[in-house]
């Protein structure tokens, strides 16, 4: 299987603090990480490769030069090859434009690497949180998709995905080439080995700029051509006025809660 994994560099949203005066996010000093969902996608690809070592894993990331860090991390974990897609022209793209750029980059990379059978994405990036880029890449390429994947495997020549659904999971068979997006599975993704880490640090990561994508339509990229615009952002208000119950004993507290809930008609 020839696989391509889309990875994004994101701020660690658990480390984000709010500026209490300006009421905005403080992004300075927040560490940048490999989007956790993308590490699940990478793990899914690595598991396919474990079973069939002739498989290859290529990773791509659109972002600034510093985003090479997540590509190196992906190389250290499991990937064979990495490309950075970078350019001012791409800045400010919403999901429709981002997915278009990524799909054009994929087509360009296929000219040297050959056609990919499976394109793997995270379910969502923990900063933008839209979960739209994966399905939109699939649509730009005209491929079928399975979202909310937990695991993928190849059996009897068919790609099968374990998909999370409301009451458990389903095994879905899908035609290739295809796009799969991944959510958190029950297992942890593997760690890089020291040897792979050292090799990844030395790896040469080609950069695809706007001019390296001759087929891309400049009218379909960037802030200017994005259909959605962020009009404003604000920090959500905290709810106040909650009632705290702390009686002498747990029994009294529980009974008081029961009374309050009954009076408020919530139970």
């Amino acid at each position, binding site marked *: 299987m020839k696989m391509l994994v889309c990875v994004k560099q994101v701020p660690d949203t658990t480390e984000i603090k709010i500026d209490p005066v300006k009421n905005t*996010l403080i992004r300075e000093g927040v560490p940048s990480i490999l989007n956790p969902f993308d590490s699940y996608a990478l793990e899914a690809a690595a598991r396919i490769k474990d079973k069939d070592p002739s498989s290859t894993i290529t990773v791509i990331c659109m972002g600034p030069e510093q985003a090479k860090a997540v590509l190196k991390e992906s190389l250290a974990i499991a990937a064979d090859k990495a490309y950075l897609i970078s350019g001012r022209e791409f800045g400010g793209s*919403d999901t429709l434009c981002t997915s278009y750029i990524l799909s054009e980059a994929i087509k360009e990379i296929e000219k040297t690497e050959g056609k990919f059978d499976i394109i793997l994405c995270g379910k969502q990036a923990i900063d933008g*949180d839209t979960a739209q880029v994966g399905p*939109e890449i699939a649509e730009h390429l005209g491929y079928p998709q399975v979202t909310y994947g937990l695991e993928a495997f190849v059996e009897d020549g068919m790609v099968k995905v374990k998909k999370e659904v409301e009451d458990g*999971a389903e095994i879905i068979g899908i035609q290739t080439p295809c796009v799969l997006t991944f959510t958190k599975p029950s297992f942890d993704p593997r760690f890089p080995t020291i040897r792979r880490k050292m090799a990844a640090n030395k790896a040469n990561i080609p950069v695809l700029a706007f001019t390296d994508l001759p087929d891309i339509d400049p009218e379909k990229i960037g802030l200017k051509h994005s259909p959605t*615009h962020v009009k404003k952002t604000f*920090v*959500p208000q905290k709810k106040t006025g909650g009632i705290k119950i702390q009686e002498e004993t747990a029994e009294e*507290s*529980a009974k008081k809660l029961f009374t309050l809930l009954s009076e408020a008609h919530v139970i």
Partner: protein
Amino acid sequence: MVNKTKDFWVFVETNEDGTAKNVGIELLTPGRELADAQGGRLAAVVIGCNTDAAVSEANRHGADQIIVVDSEEYRKYTTDAYTIALVSLVEKYGPLSMMIGATNNGRDLGPRVACRLQTGLTADCTALAIDEATGKVAWTRPAFGGNLMATILCPEHYPQIGTVRPGVFKKGEETEEKAEIIREEIHVSADQIRTQVLEILKDMDDEKVDLENAEIIVSGGRGVGGPEGFEPVRALAKVLGATVGSSRAAVDAGWISHAHQVGQTGKTVAPKLYIACGISGAIQHQAGMSGSDCIVAINKDPDAPIFDIADYGIVGNLFEVLPILTEEIRKARA
């Protein structure tokens, strides 16, 4: 695409038995206001199989028009069939705006449809309005794991589309049925559907975990201490007819399956009542449950962040509090 009407569409997702998923009916409530503000009609779009129940429910909740695509290939959701059907309806009728419930299927379908139509899509909205300056829909949504809210416009592309989180809006009062019902025959051949369900695996504890439609959720976190610690949580859920949820810490520890997880990497829920037991209330957990109508927290740490968003909080040991609370409710309901 150019819009042909000022209509506001609500996609009403159906279950396999042809009934409507709650969120589709819920969205008719804000849909009414937005359609009126846009100066167009409110249309419900029902796709499924044997959908009479869904059509009638949409009719009783204020739709002016219901567009129905009903046939066997839509019984179970597939990305390919639903995208073909919804896109051809949009192309034929040209609505100004459209909402899709942000269920797993809705978030699978929305980007596919928006991309085929080359228009914008706002994800997982929790508030809706009409922007005064432009008259466009102002879609408001959480990002950065719930740390930031963003208001988004789609000023020049049609339709303006958003997925909207279940449970944020309430179903309206039932009214007289008045909708014009339009039936469309759109058929998708088997070879146009490129995925196929091969096997259905039930959840490990063999219970249906439908958190998104639950009216009451009782969740346990790391504070329950182990798999057996979920017993008092389950007991309370049982007397309340509630669904059991959990934090990620409890899932990661292997005490309960991921299907129960609430939060950024789990389910987003908005029940009438959410009872968090032994959950600290990390921002990623809050991202999945802060839209609940009433939040109750039981935690022994008085400074736990969950108390910041709780309507009622007990500072105490869950193993002491839960059995008494369960017993009180049992007595009251007996």
